[in-house]
């Protein structure tokens, strides 16, 4: 296997493990409402921008959803379906924002795009399968908290990318 591909796979495995670690941390943090999540597990995905090519970022997002499902034992449950759908939408939105914005958009903007897409899809699934029209009452809370947490997460990821010695030691993947 070429060295570049080795490094790419190694970084993918490592960032997947980081996603899992951040997900575990998030479970320990008390939440105002049980179904609302901060999205800490998305931080490694934000860090992947600029280091991994788009297909690896897609793989990382899929792994994040899968691993969360495996470890929490919710792999075949509605939680996984919601998480996977949200992750897929977020990944698509983040890649789109990064592609459209190029150097003009930071991880804050990428994070915001991902959060909005994820929240929209999960609310749609709630509308269709769980709460019906009552989902409309949840939407403002979910979007509001999503915007706040995504902006914070994006800022933290941006800070980590500029200050982390480990991150700066990584090569840029072609």
């Amino acid at each position, binding site marked *: 296997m070429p060295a570049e591909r080795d490094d790419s*796979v190694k970084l993918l*495995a*490592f960032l*997947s*493990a*980081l996603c*899992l*670690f951040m997900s*575990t941390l998030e479970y320990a943090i008390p939440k105002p409402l049980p179904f609302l999540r901060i999205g800490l597990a998305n931080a490694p995905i934000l860090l992947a921008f600029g280091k991994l090519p788009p297909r690896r970022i897609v793989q990382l997002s899929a*792994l994040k959803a899968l*691993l969360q*499902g*495996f470890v929490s*034992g*919710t*792999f*075949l*449950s*509605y*939680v*996984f379906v919601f998480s996977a759908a949200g992750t897929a939408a977020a990944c698509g939105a983040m890649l789109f924002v990064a592609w459209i914005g190029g150097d003009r958009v930071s991880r804050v903007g990428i994070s915001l795009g991902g959060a909005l897409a994820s929240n929209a899809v999960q609310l749609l699934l709630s509308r269709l*399968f*769980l*709460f*019906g*029209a*009552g989902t409309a009452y949840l939407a403002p809370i979910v979007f509001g908290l999503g915007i706040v947490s995504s902006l914070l997460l994006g800022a933290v990821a941006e800070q980590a990318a500029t*200050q*982390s*010695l*480990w991150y700066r*030691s990584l090569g840029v993947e072609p």
Partner: protein
Amino acid sequence: MLFWAALAAYPAFVFQPSAILVLGEAVAFCVIAKRVRGRLRILPAVAMVAGIALFNLLAPVGRVFARIGEVPLTIGALELGLRKGAILAGMVQLSRIAVSRDLRLPGKTGSFLAKVFHYFDLITAFPIKPKEGNLIAQIDDAIMRVYNDEALCPKPDAQRLEGLEKDTQATGVIPIQTRPRIALFLLAVIPWALLLLGRITPSLEELLRSAESLRP
């Protein structure tokens, strides 16, 4: 093997049209999950089913069986809510049955996932001392060392990866734990049989109508 059996049962369970059969299957999955995974928390499952059923009662469907003030409670809405709630509760238990720490997937996928979990173990085990200050620098240093220091990868893990690949190549199957194969077969197949049965099983409303017609 439990993983594959649960995966096989999954679509048949999710698409089961009969609320009665879905409830029965969900209860069966609870029993199996308790048997194979230990502790079962029944209260969250009951609360979930009840909550979803209640939400669905707010949208009347079919025959009215009671009223709360001006709100009619209908059999159709109750059946829909119970079916949705039971499917969600059953899915959670099916997940518990399917997934365990001993789960091994074959080939390169299995090797890759083993690496991911190995990194995860190293990250979580790395000592961070908050009282020494500069938490960010400590975390960065920990990540740097885990990522770059091959000496942190103990040989037994590498051997386990090699052993797993050799076993998979030699036999063509994942090394399995001892499980009653008939039970696994039943877990995978019975939901499909019930899916066919569900198409001819009467709904709650039809059962109620039949019961009323039998009254003198």
